[in-house]
């Protein structure tokens, strides 16, 4: 730990001078993913929280990656208190001690939440998924129903948009190849299964436009650059509402996962952060979130009481969950490096 301590010792005075001393002065800082998701959180939670508690709130946004937090904690940068993270970030960061362990009794107990939303270091913020999206104005009549159709370039000629990561791509390939959802990750844990997924990806590769930011998807679909795409529902639903588009979603075989709220271990405002966490997980508050963004809720009571219409484009609607697959973050923590390396080699060939 010599290295880390030396780094800290060297960096601490500087960072304290630049922002550390401000940490007592700066308000409670919450960090989201920006865009419409952050807007929704502000409207549903943050404004009301400041109004009712009188605690001022500062917002920041990031693009994920637990390394960012590790750097902050190691460097003595205490500018963030509460952050929205993905599952792999949660697992790695919790192991590293970057996050506070949560007091679940104060949050209403572990059993008040859907099981995937519960973790020692984090509580589920929202439930989201990756599905098939296409433009109803371009594919009239029966569109693709599932991943096998997504792969069928004879019936649905044209390019497909896929996220330029092995994560999701390998799972969807196996689903398209007929692997039952509950066998996807066991299959991927074998060398033969990985080879099978890549072979299936080979079939569609010439017809793929790889995207790397979800913000590209509405444009790719809207301009006809691709006829269908892997997408999260939110942006397409918003485009349908605000721009009069006719994007359609196919939920069969979707992959869903939870984003979590974590409190950083070096937060100087832990009590206020816990207060905000409690506020954001209360059923009556969570129900408000569904009004601003199509997302699944993690509080069981909120899920039960929320207007069913608001569930329609979310993983919380049971009708959407045929053949659905929960993202196995443990698998990706363990296989991520190797498969990313192999995927990058494959995608470049």
């Amino acid at each position, binding site marked *: 730990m010599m*290295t880390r301590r030396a780094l800290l010792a060297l960096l601490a005075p500087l960072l304290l001078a630049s922002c550390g001393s401000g940490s007592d002065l700066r308000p409670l800082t919450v960090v989201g993913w920006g865009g419409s998701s952050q807007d929704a959180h502000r409207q549903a939670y943050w404004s009301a929280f400041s109004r009712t508690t009188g605690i001022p709130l500062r917002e920041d946004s990031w693009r994920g990656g637990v390394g960012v937090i590790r750097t902050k904690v190691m460097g003595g940068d205490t500018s963030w208190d509460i952050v929205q993270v993905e599952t792999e970030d949660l697992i790695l960061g919790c192991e590293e001690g970057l996050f506070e362990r949560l007091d679940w009794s104060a949050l209403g107990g572990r059993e008040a939440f859907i099981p995937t939303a519960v973790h020692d270091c984090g509580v589920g913020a929202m439930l989201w998924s990756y599905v098939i999206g296409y433009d109803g104005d371009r594919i009239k009549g029966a569109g693709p129903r599932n991943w096998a159709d997504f792969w069928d370039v004879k019936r649905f000629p044209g390019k497909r948009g896929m996220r330029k990561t092995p994560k999701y791509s390998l799972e969807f390939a196996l689903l398209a190849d007929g692997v039952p959802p509950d066998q996807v990750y066991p299959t991927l844990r074998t060398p033969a299964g990985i080879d099978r997924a890549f072979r299936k990806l080979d079939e569609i590769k010439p017809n793929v436009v790889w995207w790397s930011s979800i913000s590209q998807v509405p444009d790719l679909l809207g301009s006809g650059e691709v006829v269908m795409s892997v997408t999260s529902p939110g942006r397409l639903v918003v485009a349908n509402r605000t721009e009069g588009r006719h994007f359609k979603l196919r939920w069969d075989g979707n992959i869903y996962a939870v984003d979590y709220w974590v409190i950083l271990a070096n937060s100087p405002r832990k009590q206020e952060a816990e207060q905000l966490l409690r506020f954001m997980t209360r059923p009556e508050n969570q129900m408000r979130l569904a009004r601003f963004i199509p997302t699944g809720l993690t509080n069981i009571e909120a899920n039960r009481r929320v207007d069913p219409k608001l569930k329609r484009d979310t993983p919380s609607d049971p009708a959407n969950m045929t053949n659905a697959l929960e993202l196995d973050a443990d698998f990706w923590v363990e296989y991520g490096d190797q498969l990313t390396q192999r995927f990058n080699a494959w995608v470049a060939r």
Partner: protein
Amino acid sequence: MTRRWVSFALIAPLLAFLIVSFIVPVLLMLARAVTDRDLDRTWPASAAALRTWDGEGLPPDALARTVAREMLAAHRAGTLNRVANRLNYDLVGSRSLLYTTADRLAAGAPGETLADLARIDRRWARADIWTVMRHADGPLTSYYLLAALDRRIDTGGHILRVPREQAVFVDIFLRTFKIASLVALFCALLGYPVAYLLASLPRRIANPLLILVLLPFWTSALVRTAAWAVLLQTNGVVNDLLQYMGLVDAPVQLIYNRLGVYVAMTHVLLPFFILPLYGVMKGIDPTAMRAASSLGAPPLLAFLKVYLPQSLPGVAAGAVLVFTLAVGYYVTPALVGGGADQMISASIAFYTSQSLNWGMAAALSLLLLLPLLLMLFAGRTMVRTVPA
């Protein structure tokens, strides 16, 4: 002598700031490319025992016992992740192997012999996990640098290529340098005439034009990329134009491939080429060209023999700047490129922020940094030989 000390004292605060805030952290980070302290700091006894083991076949029971004890202790202390992740880099699956084994040990399963461990998980009876542990016993390692060059060390200590489907970094490095070189070349081809024009115009006209050159700075990468998508996509403006003019029959793929990368990167990096070149060109005596033509040189020859050589330091500075910035790009290539256009910085970012494999990130950074330093040195030498 005194004057030298005074000038040193004047820059000392900045120097100290740079050393503390930049150079030392960078060096500490780069050191991770060759240091390997996860295992020997978390499991000191096991590391010592691994060093004394000859590495032949399977380890003795004493070593297995030490490993089992320290594994359990680390699990209880919450530090098992360090070893688990480190071993997993080298041998995928080690992470879950360690965690499940530690869970079983915590639940009371015996861990006194190798056979005990093998009863918990058969993989303990295989040589590979032990070899990987022995390679990870620190304090120095060649693992990361070799891996960054698509190489690995086998059980016998030989350096081998990784399997073809895993070999990716050498390709990405070559691709990165190729893209950066070509972007620098395109910037030179497009930027030289612009800089020449700007330098030959009076300042009151040149300054507003310079602001136009700088415009790409002030738009975000996403907005720029979206704009290029509108222009270059299959049903985009450029394709419509090409078809309208009858140059092509069907839309051409202009984006989401290498061409898109070149277009977008050249666009955003062009100012970095034009500005230093403009500065150098402003310093070139305009009467030199007149002198050349009075001496009998036709315009093109005068340009080639008199103006061009004097502007080369600016070209070199611009090219070095563009190249250096270009090798660090990854957002733009990711947004407008295809599958085969990922650049090395994307890998570095992945290991730094996603997977927390900072050893790998450091090794890739080091391999990226060395050619850059060489090039900067070459650029400096070149600039020095052509005094302005």
